């Protein structure tokens, strides 16, 4: 018998964790001598009070949807992919190569090709840790951490020594040609007399991210492969009895995960920067961990959690602009969310389970 109704597990626990994280964050803001209520007001108006704010919120949310989905897919196979950051960096490299070295007639074809390039590069970067986990038993958490650092060094090398245009000091590629610039929300939604999302980086990849959420949902809950991934995640021995190969599932789940993390690059590299720079990922790969934990590894949960973190990021930037609270406040909130929804999950869950058991006994 379930100790708790499913809705409590899916809705109540994340909300309680979020409330705890919020209370602690408010205490942190109080401790550094600022007013938490004012801070929240500023964040809400800054992130959601204008189409400009929304443009940034949705831009960040797009990044986090991809990386959150990446972590979530791996979680379903009980693999902890901390390597989203490195995979997203490599995805950026894939996008840059597709956009720079092939002349594209129109952005729509370029987007498909760049998406493929990003996913292939991201998946390739996840493939080695996946193979080592599946075949040699090397712990995937450690290898993916190591691959983040190797990716950073590799990207640094490529930008400084190979892809930097001649005469430029800046470790970055040349700008992508005009033809591959993605339509932004500004060009998509503005009317002649009313300019919307002015200057904000949100672009068409937001819709690609939503499609990715739907595809991942269908994959995990509506296909044989998804069933195998979940079965393997629940019980390895059970999966082996059912004829599911652990090696195959580990590698496939990590390839999908790496591909999704890599796909992020169509948003930040192709959509926003329109060239590849150092540190283009800005830690989005790690935020994916918080997003996946918060969203309970469900694509719809990931979608909501990504919006929440998009709001936090844009709100945090506004806070840093108008108050003396630095942007790092968001990193603290992110840490608290990971702590409560991930590591201290039992702290929230145990008392709740007791409560539900007590409630169930009473009527008899």
């Amino acid at each position, binding site marked *: 018998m379930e100790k708790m109704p499913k809705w409590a597990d899916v809705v109540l626990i994340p909300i309680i964790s979020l409330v705890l994280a919020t209370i602690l964050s408010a205490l942190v803001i109080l401790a550094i001598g600022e007013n938490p209520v004012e801070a929240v007001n500023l964040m809400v108006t800054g992130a959601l009070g204008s189409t400009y704010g929304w443009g940034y919120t949705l831009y960040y949310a797009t990044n986090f949807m991809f990386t959150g989905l990446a972590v979530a897919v791996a979680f379903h196979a009980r693999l902890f992919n901390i390597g989203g950051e490195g995979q997203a960096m490599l995805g950026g490299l894939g996008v840059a190569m597709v956009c720079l070295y092939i002349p594209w007639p129109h952005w729509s074809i370029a987007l498909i090709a760049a998406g493929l390039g990003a996913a292939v590069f991201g998946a390739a970067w996840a493939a080695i840790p996946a193979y080592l986990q599946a075949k040699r038993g090397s712990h995937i958490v450690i290898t993916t951490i190591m691959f983040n*650092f190797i990716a950073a*060094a590799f990207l640094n090398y490529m930008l400084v020594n190979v892809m930097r245009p001649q005469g430029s000091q800046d470790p970055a590629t040349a700008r992508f040609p005009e033809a591959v610039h993605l339509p932004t929300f500004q060009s998509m939604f503005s009317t002649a007399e009313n300019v919307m999302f002015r200057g904000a980086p949100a672009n068409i990849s937001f819709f690609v991210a939503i499609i990715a959420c739907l595809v991942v949902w269908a994959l995990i809950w509506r296909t044989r492969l998804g069933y195998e991934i979940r079965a393997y995640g629940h019980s390895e021995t059970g999966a082996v009895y059912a004829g599911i190969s652990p090696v195959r599932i580990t590698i496939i789940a990590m390839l999908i995960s790496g591909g999704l993390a890599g796909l992020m690059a169509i948003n930040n590299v192709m959509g926003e920067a329109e060239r590849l720079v150092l540190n283009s990922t800005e830690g989005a790969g790690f935020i994916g961990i918080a997003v996946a934990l918060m969203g309970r590894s469900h694509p719809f949960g990931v979608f909501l959690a990504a919006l929440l973190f998009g709001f936090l990021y844009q709100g945090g930037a506004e806070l840093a602009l108008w108050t003396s609270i630095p942007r790092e406040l968001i990193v*603290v909130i992110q840490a608290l969310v990971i702590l409560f929804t991930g*590591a201290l999950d039992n702290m929230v869950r145990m008392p709740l389970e007791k409560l539900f058991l007590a409630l169930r006994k009473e009527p008899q």
Partner: protein
Amino acid sequence: MDSFVTLIQVLDSTVRLATPLLLACLAGLYSERAGIFDIGLEGKMLISAFFSAAVAAVTGSVWLGLLAGIASSLVLSALHGVASITFRGNQLISGVAINFLASGLTVLIAQSWFQQGGRTPSLFGQGRFEPINFPFAEALSEVPFIGPIYSELLSGHSILVYIAFLMVPATWWILYRTRFGLRLRAVGENPAAVDTAGVSVVGLRFAAVAICGVLCGIAGAYLATALQAGFVKEMTAGRGFIALAALIFAKWRPWHAMWACLLFGLLQAIALRFQNIDLGGIVIPVQVMDALPYILTVVILAGFVGKAVPPRAGGEPYVKER
């Protein structure tokens, strides 16, 4: 002679750069040998670096700074312990959270206390660990060969460097020659057996996590008050992860940990000094040096060159039988 001087200088900087790695690596060794994975070494070092520098800057005493650093690192250790031992949460996720917590809190508090863009004021005088000169170091420096080794390489480091290297035999002795060490290793391999013998698994694991906190605290304090003069944002720069890599490279053994940290320290020293290395036509870019510790660790983990097998109960929360 010139190349000998260069060699001594590189080795000297190797010792300096290996020290924080070694302290953090031994910290991880205690924790992981007791079955608690710790990828939060980086965060604990970072928070200690900040609090040691901040307290040293305010009080002017580096020793109070060191204490504050250790205390702050212990708080994060306690958090890791509560999450992964008491509430049997995922140790890896807890470590990730601790890294972010330290990364955010240090800048937030630094900005609030000092308003210098997330750094502490520069330390000087009593606010820093000064180098200790061995007797006759000055006089012997002119002696060929032995002189530079004695006066440059061995003498002239801060006390924390010597503590770090003394911790290696100490750790070996504790782990392999004391009752506590035997139990610590046992609890990482088979906690149920330790429990059956009537020894508290929870107590042992908390003790290991606490030792880990103290050593990470010293490592962070060394970074901010001895290697450099003050705290800057993200100053650990991945050292916690290199230490973790060294720990795996050493297969969780103290003496090997020292050699692994010296090797990775040497790579850092070479990268700092030479940038791109020209080996008769083939240029090794500096990024290869940066990535080498991680690549070597992956190779070791893959088991192509001697397999690294972690403590068997590592990462598994212990549930007492009822």
